[in-house]
């Protein structure tokens, strides 16, 4: 491994730093006096060495000196940690983003290690609330190491990384759920608690569905900013495409836009999004009822749609019950039970169609679903009829068997009254 170690000035050593980065290669472990000395120390001076074993940078041959400056080949502390050799010591919070970006915004450099890796993280960060505030001198906001950790930085796809999808919410919550920390910014700190009650968190944590959204999915990660009120539907629509399409065509879109309100989040919330239900449409505590009077056109539409959805849900529940009864009595109803899936899908389609906010749109999938429910209900009833038929058949055959047994019994009695079953031995 070649290292350009010429120069004594700070600038020269900065060049050294740059060239060091440029020429670093994942070769055999080279001399690293930083590690040698610090691994013999205690406590906070030793911790970085033990941590660094897990760091992705160490795998690629980077050393302490690549970020902190200094000379990794010098055995004496003065030489190793010489400011003349570019040693920076502890990196200040404000200086962190620029330091990381030194390599991570260098496309040519990153191309050597990970061609697909983005190089715009710093640019994005500077557009974020965190970046702007840090640039203005507020060091209480998040910088790179607050989220990615330091000295033991793992790749995002590593489940132990603080920014792994499952762990990201906790990482954000370190500050954002801390009321004391957020108070000066006048930002609420209940988002994490709310998010933990949501279906998205349930998908992530219970089902392990990594495609479910976490904080960064909606807010961005490096360019973290809350979505603008106007764009809430677009953000939700990155996954929930059909809903966005229907909503944008519906009367709610211009109405909410005029009010300056936030699209999907008006009815569904933002962080604590729960599983939606028919109760949101009509009845006491309904979401629609919060704006629409029951006698108004909107209120009437809501009641109608709720009625349609309830009808289909009830029909499916009923045929479920009949099929389960049939199945529990031992009848083979696996096909109708699977057909029920189609009915449930129709209900899902109807609930999607609801977002056009017109009863006619909902009526079509509901009708399809009702047809399926009727079919499966008939199948269940047929199965129960078959079951009863079997029992009648059993009773009949039992009758014939019992009659035969009675006949046998009487035949035995009659035989033995005349000729004993036990022949008396002759001549005894």
């Amino acid at each position: 491994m070649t290292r350009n170690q010429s120069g004594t000035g700070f600038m020269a050593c900065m060049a050294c730093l740059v060239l060091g980065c440029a020429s670093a290669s994942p070769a055999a472990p080279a001399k690293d006096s930083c590690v040698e000395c610090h691994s013999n120390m205690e406590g906070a001076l030793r911790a970085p060495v033990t941590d660094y074993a897990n760091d992705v940078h160490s795998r690629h041959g980077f050393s302490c000196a690549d970020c902190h400056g200094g000379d990794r080949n010098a055995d004496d502390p003065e030489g190793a940690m010489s400011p003349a050799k570019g040693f920076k010591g502890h990196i200040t919070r404000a200086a962190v983003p620029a330091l990381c970006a030194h390599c991570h915004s260098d496309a040519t450099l990153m191309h050597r290690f990970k061609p697909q890796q983005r190089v715009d993280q710093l640019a994005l960060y500077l557009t974020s609330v965190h970046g702007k505030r840090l640039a203005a001198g507020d060091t209480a906001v998040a910088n790179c190491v607050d989220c990615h950790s330091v000295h033991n930085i793992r790749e995002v796809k590593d489940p132990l990384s603080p920014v792994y999808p499952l762990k990201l919410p906790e990482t954000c919550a370190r500050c954002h759920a801390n009321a004391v920390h957020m108070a000066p910014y006048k930002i609420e700190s209940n988002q994490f608690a709310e998010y933990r009650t949501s279906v998205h968190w349930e998908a992530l944590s219970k089902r392990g569905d990594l495609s479910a959204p976490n904080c960064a999915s909606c807010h961005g990660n490096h360019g973290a900013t809350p979505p603008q009120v106007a764009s809430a539907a677009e953000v939700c629509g990155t996954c929930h495409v059909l809903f966005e399409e229907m909503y944008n065509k519906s009367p709610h879109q211009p109405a909410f836009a005029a009010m300056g309100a936030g699209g999907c989040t008006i009815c569904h919330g933002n962080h604590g999004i729960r599983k939606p239900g028919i109760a949101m449409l009509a009845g006491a505590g309904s979401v629609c009822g919060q704006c629409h009077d029951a006698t108004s056109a909107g209120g009437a539409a809501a009641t109608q749609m709720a009625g349609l959805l309830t009808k289909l849900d009830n029909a499916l529940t009923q045929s479920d019950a009949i099929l389960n009864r049939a199945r529990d009595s031992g009848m083979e109803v696996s096909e109708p039970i699977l057909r029920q899936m189609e009915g449930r899908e129709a209900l899902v389609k109807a609930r999607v169609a609801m977002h056009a906010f017109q009863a006619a749109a909902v009526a079509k999938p509901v009708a399809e679903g009702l047809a399926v429910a009727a079919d499966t209900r008939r199948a269940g009833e047929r199965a129960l009829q078959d079951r009863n038929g079997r029992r009648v058949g059993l009773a009949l055959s039992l009758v014939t068997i019992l009659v035969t047994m009675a006949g046998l019994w009487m035949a035995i009695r009659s035989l033995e009254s005349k000729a004993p079953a036990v022949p008396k031995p002759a001549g005894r």
Partner: protein
Amino acid sequence: MASALRPKGLGWLDERLGLSALREFTAHKTVPLHSATVWYYFGGITLFLFTIQVLTGVLLLLYYRPSPTEAYESVQFIMTRVQFGWLVRSIHSWSANLMILTAFIHMFSVVFLHSYRRPREVTWLSGLVLLGLALGFGFSGYLLPWNKVSYFATKVGTDMAATVPVAGHQVARFLRGGADVGGATLTRFFGFHVAVLPGLTTLLLVVHLGLVQRHGMSSPPWSEGRKLDQMRFFPNFFLRELMAWYAALAVLGSLAALFPWELGEKADPFAPAPAGIRPEWYFLAPFYTLKLIPSHVWRIEGELLGLMGFALLAAWWVLLPFWASDSRGTLRTRWVTGAGVALMAYLVTFSLLGYFR
């Protein structure tokens, strides 16, 4: 006997088949009457249930397909589309279990009535072979519906065969038709179940039943000295036996109609074994015993020790008639009865434990 029944027809047959010799023989067959006579029915019931198995089995053969892509579907077809398919299949499954139960009862009644003693040793041996064949029928038949439970039960069973020293792997390979349980196993088990085992069973049955007729019904040892009353087999005992067979039919029909045998889920060799896999009840006792044995005992693999133990137990049991009498010919009745009770207690307890644990 009512003599008005078909005299002419019988005479024609008699002249050609020699039926009157049969009539002579059956007229003399008797059954001793004592407190335990009721146990004499169980051999006949087992035979009757075997006949039911053959008949329902042949019917099922008309629709069953022994390949992994079609076996489960063909059983589902039988259960849902074929008229009374549910009845034939459920009777076949229930009768299989009842037959093994009555076979065990029959064996234990022979033990406690000491019918194995001289000159009936070969009858005992052939009976035990028949019991083994019945268990073989159960094991091979269980795989045929190709559902999750049966696939994994077969896997566990053949894995156990592989632990036998020296020949274990060959035996397992022979059973499985290859290295793993798969389509080859299904085809092979089907062949065993419908051809090999029925053939062997028929042969053994001829031997077993022939010997029973030759030696007549045995009387229990405590009756030696006194002359027991003897009931004519034909028609008196036989009519009673018919009643017992009809009762068995009533039980089978009720079980099939009220508790139809379930289909289960289709086997998926790539899915992990479902929790709580266990074999059918008649294999539960050895299965649970093996679970209890630690994985290694003094450097011998636990499973191997268990199987060796079973082999020794089986050998000892097979040779029962030979150690049941001492050198002077005196019967060690108490020992045998004790051994019988112990074995029964072990089987019942461990089967229950295996079921509930």
